[in-house]
């Protein structure tokens, strides 16, 4: 009868000498294979006395089980070590970055415009748009600016070679969209109209001949100048922050009466002029076949480029049309 304890001890020692799964399998075969001592001993069970046979068989089975466990555990150990080795060999220097993936960038004007649109949509406005080339009717006359009006000179209009002289122009403000909206849609009207506008301003660090404005128009029953001031206040807080205040100062625009400039407060307590606003002039409503006795409303507008320029402290507003990739990718 073999010494099972010794066999088990031997198997354990042999298993440790194997360093790969293949080697282990060979060793395992020596101890558990067809030609192993255990198998021979099992075959030899018939030659031992019957009274001892059951005990001997049990001992053999137990020995087999314990040796099997030895090899199973050793196999796991080797596999773990092999994984460690394999993974270690796959080392990559993650700081070696070839062909990086980059995101693109929305233009600063688009970012600001989207943000403004979102604030006003949140306040119940829809977004209206119109053409960039306009007729004198939409750009001036319907807005209560007759041809002789001194204010026309203030617009420094860029005219287009179509129609009669000075009949067609690049819109000098987004206000024509007010008229187009009122012609198309019956009140109540709650719109903002962002878009490109044009003036004969030579490009310099603070001027561009093509720039962007956003315009708001509300026409409803019982709209007051208090509503105008309150709406501007709500917008200013939503866009610039809760701590920012607004104020209105008397001003003049032919298409609003009363008219105002609106300022926002700066951290140092001073005021910054942001835009113009006022109660829609009755003539403008009449020009769009809206009865000024039944409907009232307000309008407001301001420049987007200036807002962007202030927010990022651009020292030259021409950056916004130069489209230098090194500028575009900063935002």
């Amino acid at each position: 009868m073999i010494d099972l304890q010794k066999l088990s001890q031997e198997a354990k020692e042999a298993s440790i000498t194997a360093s790969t799964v293949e080697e282990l399998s060979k060793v395992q075969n020596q101890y558990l294979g067809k030609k192993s001592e255990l198998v021979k001993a099992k075959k030899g069970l018939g030659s031992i006395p019957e009274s001892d046979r059951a005990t001997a068989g049990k001992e053999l089975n137990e020995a087999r089980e314990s040796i099997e466990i030895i090899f199973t555990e050793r196999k796991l150990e080797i596999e773990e070590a092999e994984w460690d080795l394999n993974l270690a060999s796959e080392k990559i220097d993650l700081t070696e970055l070839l062909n990086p993936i980059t995101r693109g960038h929305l233009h600063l004007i688009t970012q600001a415009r989207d943000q403004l649109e979102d604030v006003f949509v949140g306040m119940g406005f829809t977004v209206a748009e119109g053409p960039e080339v306009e007729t004198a009717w939409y750009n001036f006359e319907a807005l209560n600016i007759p041809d002789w009006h001194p204010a026309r000179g203030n617009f420094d209009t860029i005219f287009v070679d179509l129609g009669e002289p000075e009949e067609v122009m690049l819109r000098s403000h987004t206000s024509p969209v007010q008229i187009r909206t009122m012609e198309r849609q019956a009140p109540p009207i709650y719109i903002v109209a962002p878009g490109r506008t044009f003036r004969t301003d030579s490009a310099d660090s603070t001027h561009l001949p093509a720039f962007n404005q956003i315009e708001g128009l509300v026409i409803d029953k019982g709209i007051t100048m208090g509503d105008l001031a309150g709406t501007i206040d709500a917008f200013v807080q939503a866009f610039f922050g809760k701590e920012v205040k607004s104020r209105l100062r008397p001003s003049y625009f032919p298409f609003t009466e009363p008219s105002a400039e609106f300022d926002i407060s700066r951290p140092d307590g001073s005021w910054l002029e942001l835009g113009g606003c006022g109660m829609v002039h009755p003539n403008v409503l009449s020009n769009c076949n809206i009865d000024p006795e039944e409907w009232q409303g307000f309008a407001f507008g301001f420049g987007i480029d200036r807002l962007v320029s202030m927010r990022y402290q651009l020292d030259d507003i021409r950056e916004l049309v130069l489209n230098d990739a090194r500028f575009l990718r900063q935002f």
Partner: protein
Amino acid sequence: MKVLLSWLKEFAPDIDGDPVELGETLSALGLAVESMSIIGEELSGVVVGQVLELKPHPNAERIQLVDVDLGDGEPTQICCGAFNMSVGDFIPVATIGTVMPGGMEIAQRELRGELSNGMCCSASEIGMGLDSEGIMILSNPNADLEIGTPLNQALGIEPDVLWDLEVNANRPDAMSVAGVARDLAAALQIPFAFPRIDVGESGNANETNVSVRIQDASLCGRFLTRVIKGVSVGPSPRWLQNRLVNLGMRPINNVVDISNYVMLELGQPNHTYDMAKVAGGILGVRRASNGELITTLDGTERELSDIDGVITDADDKPIGIAGIMGGESTEISETTEEIIVEVAWWDPPSISRTVKRLNLMSEASIRFRRGVDYGENMVRAVDRVAELLAECGGVATSGIVEAKGDLPDRSPIIVRPAKINALLGTGLTPDAMERHLSSIGFEITQKRKNLNVTVPTWRWDTETETDVAEEIARMHGYENIARTVPRGSQAGELSQFQKDRRLVREVLVGVGFDETMPMPFLAPGDLKLSGLPEEAISLSNPLVHEESLLRTSLLPGQLKLIAYNQSHRINDLKFFEIGHIFLPPDEGDLLPDEREHLSVAIVGEDAPSAVKILNLLGNALVLPNLQLKEPTADGLHPRRSSSVLVAGKPYGHVGEISPRTLQRFGITGRVAWLELDLGKLLEGPHGKRRYVKVSKYPTSDIDLAFDVPESVRSAEIEGCLRKGGGKLLSNLMLFDSYKGESMGEERRSLAYRLRFQSTETTLTDSQIGELRQKCIDEVQKKTKARIRE
């Protein structure tokens, strides 16, 4: 409009307080303070000097050596960069040790080997006005300047506050010191009054041998004249010069200066004629005839048209353009003794049209086109000129000669207090409204349910009830209007187009594109360089020649941007733009055919990269039946670009910009390009997503490779494969395109992987075999491609 505190106080003596707070009050009245400065503060060290000798600097051309007497009778040498003074002139000199308003301390300096012992000053350098051109030459009309005395003392300058106010087009009254004082006094609730004017008339009416005829009553509402005799033309008094300089006008002579002074003070432009040069002593007013000529005070001969107004003499010859500028022929000169003073009211639209036609803006026309006061102030102005001229020896002959034309309608405006409150969101009583209005000269002639409001003659702009509402709001204070928000509730939302446009932007940004926004102007030649048709809408008054056309495509602008960035050695450019383009108007339309385009440019990549972006957008927007078809567009590579069709309609082009075009712009490398009419595209069918049940049955893949001649496009083969595979073809992908010697001339191998799957059953091998054959047959029947076995 600039105003001085001391001048305002002549009309409202009780004005008091912190200049900054007074400025806030002016701003709250709608007279926004653009700048404020304290002037005439003691500048210790600046004295009156007299030029003794002027010598060229031996070593510097742009500097001269000025010897000045600073009171000690000895020459003090100063190096000076200005050349406008002459020997004998009195000039302000900052002596050594003077600290200038900017903080600079004057010290002895050496300039190219010559000593400079002080500084000759311009007006702006010492806070005496805005003139920074040349050294300030101090006039000495009464020979009372004492050399060496401190400048302020010598000139009689008192410390004062100067505000520069922004006056809106609807405030003709505020284009004068008195008008600003009236508003400010009302806001401060202090008295306002015009000082009494003493004309000191003498002689009898017969001496007033001037007559006035208004031939066009629509042009001139009122025309007043006064004749002043015995004037001696010379420099005006120092105090008057100082005020003009402070308000930004250059003193010329006493007659011109007084005329300007009264305009600034009372807002009433006025004109002075040398009576001896006015033929017949008759002034007429009429419209000019087309082609009539006049030489104006500035020495320019101008051709008139029948919209312009003129003042004529007895010979009906024009001697001035109404409300714009006087004529040279009757100009005041040193020999003038007798003067006709004119104060008139011109029809604002007429003046505006002439200003625009002649492009001739003057201090007078700025006021006339807004509508000056047509009431008592006209008399006040003509009298004030006479009063001031009396200081220069002038004697007013008795009486004002006056003619009248059509004056503005002064019937009262009916103002409904309820309407005013409903507009402003206030709860003002009629009494409060009356108080606000009377404080600025509006008269309430009747007060029952409604107010009858008579507008003062100095507010030509005020015509309607809402105009009056603004005046009430202004005096009530905009800041005292309670803030509310509109009660009507609306659901705000972006339109589908706006949402889709944002989606396009986000998709492109997500795959690395930077958004660009060039201006939409092109230079003549840009279109030709870009290979595009040259027809484009031009601007009538472009700022520069290079920006005189409106773009018809986004291509030229993007080419310029790419070239610009490459010139700064940035080559990894992936740009997109969404912007308007302008095509000539459609038949019968006035406005251009304006469209919103999208462009995508990938520098350094070829056409397929652009097609991938197109497909990506097609996927994001769910464009049905996206197809590429010939022909391509101008400016693009003839063999590497196609039209883009969605549901059979063309919306733009995709591919590559022609290397010939790129070469003209100096762009290196290839540029993949996509331009779509985004506006039209998003009006068309898109965005419909349908649920298709995911099949639980197994899939079978087969690969098919075809030998394809150059003339056959992959899309055609794909079409055949789809047709052959029918509903069971769940996926189709080109996985290899091979062109090589083994393929022969102008042929290539295209290999596709087809995945078949049924939603109802497991497909058998024989079914797959049949499908395979159907696909091959379809391709071979419809195209010249052949299966590669």
